[in-house]
């Protein structure tokens, strides 16, 4: 606000009046800005080169654009990894076993039910306290399961998920936050049994590629396009956003989206080689200190 305006406002001693005049000033400013924008839009419609020039000149600084250099970004994957078997054998379909942490509550079972609806070929087994994670992984590999998912719940809040790739690992641990259940999303749809498509956004580093390959290996190779269901895993600043939608072709150009839910955010905390063996990568709180350094 210019000095003269603030001086005028300071001199008005009636609070109500001052508020009204301040609102009027703000309103005038927005109107002025809008008219300027309209004029600019007209000009740019007539001369599109002006718009391109303006957009080239006014590039806003974001944390992403200031990202710390990482030599692994978009580098080719060298050699093979544990997921190579899935990508080479196009006939083999994933088989997932889902269970919860010991002493789980209703929330963990609800989350497990949601996962069963999302991922095809899932089996839920109630957790038995006498078996450790390594023992469960052994039993699952004997029964030809390709993944073991253990949902972690603490004080009736689902807060983490361990995904083990079987039989030789690796083991991933993600923390879960911002969970929105399907029923909380207004206008949500219900997923069908069709195999969904998968969109993986912005997994660029070597570590990010390992994570993206894990998510790819959770779904069969060929999605059923008839179902028009799509799972999106969008990575932004090392937060992985999970969303599920159904798309509708309204006409030749427009596409409508219906959210199927649930919504939740994953954060990679640890990758271990094998079944919970040597640490491949582990999150440390000091990694968050540098806001411009990203690992996925």
């Amino acid at each position, binding site marked *: 606000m210019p000095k003269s305006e603030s001086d005028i406002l300071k001199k008005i001693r009636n609070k109500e009046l001052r508020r009204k005049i301040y609102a009027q000033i703000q309103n005038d400013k927005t109107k002025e800005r809008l008219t300027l924008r309209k004029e600019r839009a007209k000009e740019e419609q007539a001369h599109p080169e002006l718009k391109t020039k303006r957009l080239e000149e006014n590039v806003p600084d974001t944390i992403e654009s200031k990202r710390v*250099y*990482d*030599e*692994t970004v978009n*580098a080719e994957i*060298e*050699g*093979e*990894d544990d997921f*190579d078997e899935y990508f080479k054998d196009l006939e083999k379909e994933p088989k997932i076993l889902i269970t919860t942490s010991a002493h789980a509550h209703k929330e963990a079972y609800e989350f497990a039910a949601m996962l069963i609806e999302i991922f095809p070929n899932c089996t839920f087994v109630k957790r038995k306290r006498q078996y450790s994670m390594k023992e469960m992984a052994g039993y699952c590999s004997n029964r030809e399961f390709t993944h073991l998912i253990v949902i972690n719940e603490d004080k009736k809040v689902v807060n983490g998920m361990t995904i083990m790739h079987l039989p030789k690992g690796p083991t991933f641990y993600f923390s879960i936050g911002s969970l929105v259940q399907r029923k909380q999303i207004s206008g949500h749809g219900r997923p069908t049994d069709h195999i969904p498509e998968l969109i993986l956004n912005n997994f660029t580093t*070597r570590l990010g590629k390992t994570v993206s390959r894990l998510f790819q290996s959770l779904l069969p190779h060929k999605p059923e396009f008839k179902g028009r269901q799509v799972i999106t895993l969008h990575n932004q600043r090392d937060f992985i956003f999970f969303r599920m939608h159904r798309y509708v072709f309204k006409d030749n150009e427009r596409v409508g989206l219906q959210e199927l839910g649930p919504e939740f955010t994953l954060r990679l905390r640890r990758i271990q*080689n094998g079944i919970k*063996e*040597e*640490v*491949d*990568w*582990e999150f440390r709180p000091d990694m968050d200190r540098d806001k411009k350094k990203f690992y996925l």
Partner: protein
Amino acid sequence: MKILASASDSGSLKEIVCPRGTDTSIQTAPQPISITTYCKETRSTRILQFILYETKYLIATRAGGSICVYDLLDSYKLVHRFLGFGQNSTDLFVSLFVNPLDKLCYSCTLSGQVFVIDPADLDKEAVKLQLPPSNSVECFVCDSIRPDIFAYGGKENDLKVVKLEKDQFQLVFKARNVPDNRLDLREPVWVKKIEFLSEDSDNPDTYKLIIVTGYGQIRYYDSSESRRPSFNFKVLPDALITLKKVKGEPSHIICSDIKTTTAKFDYKTGLMQGKFHGTVGCTQALDIFEPTKLLATGGLDRYVRCFDIASRKCFVKVYVGTHISDVMVLEDNWREQRELKKKKKERSKKTKSESEEGEEDGESDSDADDLWSKLEENLLKARKKRKLR
């Protein structure tokens, strides 16, 4: 400097040539001169350990039960491959070393099978030996001053020292487990790495060894004192998987665990002397380059790092792109390079000063004359003043 690292994901060997100060994660820092891949195979036949035999051969054990001999002088060309070692595909090699006294190459598998190769005569078949029956073997080492003395251990297989006589291993020392804990429960045993600390002055029947365990303990054994460890310290909560003795620093060792810690410890006090910072994944391989006292590390974070052992500063960080199972520094001509640089600087300084002197000769003479004349004038003035008084 030249570093060799075995890349697990591609089953290859990588030769890194880089100057000191190299850091691939900083664009403005010096970058490696070359990273060359040799001996490429598959992940199922990845290199597990490798060693140098004199300056002639590089010997590597591979998953799947083979030992390969590569020519060091002919860009790591395969010279000979010994096949069919180990009971099955999961019976991996755990140790590989050349006995410094008999110059034979020994390798050992998880099941306790020992294979002896003579690198001087590669046509000779490998000799197969069997360690005394026990649980899995996770480490097998030889003594540096006695050619026929070896030590081994593993999970629920406590430290044993054996003597090789007529292709048979005779047990000469068997460690006793530490006393039961305060709850009167037996302490579990999990030997991960062993090193002999023998010296020439030692009694021939005395064995001094140091081990690290899968329960984060460091133990020192002296057979002349007791069968139980003389020192036993739990230094870290997680399993220790590597061990290297620092020569010239009494009672100092360098270990790394299955998490991100790589640190120097004093095995007589159990105190950590300092950490080697920087790794974000488990360090699986350590190598100490004695001439320049540097430590090379490699592991699951896909970086090869070099540290100065005394200051613990990282001066080389190179992204390799695959998991690293073993690492070795071949040469470090840093001192020579430093001296060369110094000489160059001195030479350039000399030439500069000579040229400047040549230019300034005339000016400097006139300056000196002025100065002398001024001094004389001042002296005259002072004398006059004195006379006036």
